[in-house]
């Protein structure tokens, strides 16, 4: 069984370091925003900024933009955006810790199968988190207080890209933290790619 043989192949030492290095990338995640939302309007030329970290929400302009965004949102009856609402901010740091431990485990046991496990689990985790984030955007935009001064039809703030909402141009893009997560995935995929090539070479020899 070729696949089983590949999965139980012992990683090269270079691959072990690569997996460890990928784990270090995860350690950096708390320092960079995962997602960034910026709103521009004529009277906000410098923009109102909101940075979403793995564990916190940070408004631009020394934190003041979060209050600013919430004050504007209350006119359309959107509930206050606050860190407590983001259940992701509790489980993401926890899960990142698990992946760092898995990375250590992989570096020690060093089987290709361990890397495959990590990659599959991580992709699931990332898609799940993105999904809940999109749902959160959807609920902020749809669960509007019917007694709000300004009544607007339910909407979903952009999860990715640009959208015009009333007088605001809203931009939503992944931040450096998400790029690090992407790099983590790419590192694991690269390990698998090179391990596959090594496996084929050995099989051919």
């Amino acid at each position, binding site marked *: 069984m070729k696949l089983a043989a590949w999965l139980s192949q012992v990683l090269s030492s270079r691959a072990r370091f690569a997996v460890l290095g990928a784990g270090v990338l995860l350690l950096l995640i708390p320092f960079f925003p995962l997602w960034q939302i910026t709103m521009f309007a004529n009277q906000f030329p410098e923009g109102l900024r909101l940075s979403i970290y793995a564990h916190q929400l940070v408004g631009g*302009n*020394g934190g*003041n933009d979060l*209050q*600013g965004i919430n*004050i504007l949102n209350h*006119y359309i009856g959107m509930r206050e955006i606050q860190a407590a609402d983001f259940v992701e901010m509790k489980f993401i740091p926890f899960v990142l810790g698990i992946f760092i431990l898995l990375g250590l485990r992989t570096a020690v046991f060093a089987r290709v199968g361990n890397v495959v496990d990590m990659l599959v689990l991580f992709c699931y985790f990332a898609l799940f988190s993105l999904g809940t984030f999109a749902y959160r955007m959807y609920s902020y935009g749809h669960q509007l207080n019917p007694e709000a*001064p300004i009544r607007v039809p339910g909407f979903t703030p952009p999860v990715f890209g640009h959208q015009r909402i009333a007088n605001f141009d809203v931009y939503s893009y992944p931040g450096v933290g998400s790029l690090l997560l992407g790099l983590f995935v790419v590192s694991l995929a690269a390990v698998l790619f090179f391990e596959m090539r090594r496996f084929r070479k050995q099989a051919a020899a």
Partner: protein
Amino acid sequence: MKRHLAIAALLLAAACAPSKGPQGGSNSRLADAREAAQRTFVEPGKLDEFYLFYSGGHSGQVYVAGVPSMRHIATIPVFAPYPATGYGFDTESKAMLGGYTWGDVHHPALSKTKGDYDGRWLFVNDNANNRVARIDLRDFKTHQILGPIANSSGNHGSAFVTENTEYALVASRFSIPIPRGTYAPTSKYATDYKGVLSGIKIDSATGEMSVAWQIMTPPFDWDLASTGKEVSRDWVVWSSYNSERAIGRLEVTAAQRDRDYITFVNWRMAAAAAAQGKGKIIAGVRVLNPKEVPGMMYLVPLAKSPHGADFSPDGRYVVGGGKLAPYVTVYDFQKFLAAAEANDTIGNEDGIPVLRYESIRVAEVPVGLGPLHTQFDDQGYAYTSLFVESAIAKWKLGPFDGHDSALVVAKIPVNFSVGHLVTAHGDARHPVGRYLISMNKLSKGRHLNVGPSQPESSQLIDITGAGMTMLYEAYTEPEPHFAQLVRADLLHPIEVYPKAENKDPNAIWAASDAKITRRPGIVEAKIYSIRSYFAPNEIEVQQGDSVILHVTNAEQERDMLHGFGLAGYNINVVMDPGETKTIAFRATKPGVYPFYCTNFCSAMHQEMQGYFLVKPRAGTSVAAASAEGRN
């Protein structure tokens, strides 16, 4: 846009004008107008290069404009209530005003370090009620009003700060018998009335002012001052008029002598003498007698009815302007020191030595008629305002080798009757030059007609190069006296009050913390304001209750101000973002009174309102209750 139109109109007018207009050849005028427009045009969204702090005269306020555009940017209320910013209505500013509703701001002085502006504070005087105020340039607000200063009356020669802002030096214009409150008939003016020079100590960390010492002088009318620099750093000069010690119609009686005095005072020696316990305490202040502190104070003759007295940037010369003389007098500070050392006197006034004029003056520069004030640039030129001639003279500050008339290099007429003038950093150790603003006492219809009460005019003049070019003209409310023109990059004001810095125990940051507390006869409320509501929006009290309201603006976004206006109770405060203000009053009038946000904030600003309900005292009929309210 408006400026664009104005320029277009100007160009059009020039193009259509007959070839020989009142201004001379129309072609050169066109070129000048285009160049002047380019020099002063600051595009929408772009910033001016300089702050201009105008004194507001008897309006009691300070005006801030940008230069070169000359646009008025803000009014800083100082000595008079100003509903636009809620100044004079809350308990803190009310206490600072001390019951006065006006003042007379003449001479703003920026704080200095090593003789140059450091952008920390602006000190201004009140000529009327003997006060000095400090504006903090971190938030452009008045933070202290000191006074009425004991013994001093008519705080005109003020406020002038020393080289490192150790002192603001102030002097009395109107001599009175001291302490204030003492009676003496004017027939005893020469002996019983006193002039007073005061040293106002400034705390180097906080800017807090206190009266440190005073010098009692003969009853001359102390006029204007200038502080020394470098070699003269320990000295201050004041000009004076009425050395005749005359009363009555001063325009005649005080203009009899050919020369009055300028005084040189060693403020460091005065401070030391006061510290040694010399002099005596009058009205709580240590007052020095110059006779008892030899070397502290000298008089030097100055022609005639002196006004301005200004140290040159290097501190080597003093330029004195006599209102009724056709020249300015230049004194050499080193020669002054030598004459003082050699006791080269021609007499004394109440024991104060009068030094020999000829030993100290090095030039009489024939600048023109009615010289008042002198400012300086970075190219070695001096600029003197000529009130009578209605012009400004530009002249070279030396060499003083006897060819005095050769020093005058240019003159420009101004419209009309210039008082003070200001150049960029023009009284500092290192002037910047470039611009001069002529603050004219009369505008005489050069503006759109606004009826008999006419504004003053301020003219912006380019002083680069050897000559002077008129660039622009603006109008200000009454009435700029002196001003300060400072590079914009030296100031770093905040845009909101950071929440973390608000130490007011009654500040609240959430609607849920809003609270009304009732004690017998007192209702106290913490009010929360944010776009676009107040919490609470109903406040009910009993007629006769003392009401204390603490209103916090919980915003942290720039320019998001909220006002709290209470109709019928003569109250309006404005809270900047992050600021808490307290108002206290008695609910004398029963009934229902709306309160609302007075400073436009948002789309729902109009809805930002509430009710102040006053229940009538039991047994009071509506008619009787409202009659009481009127009393």
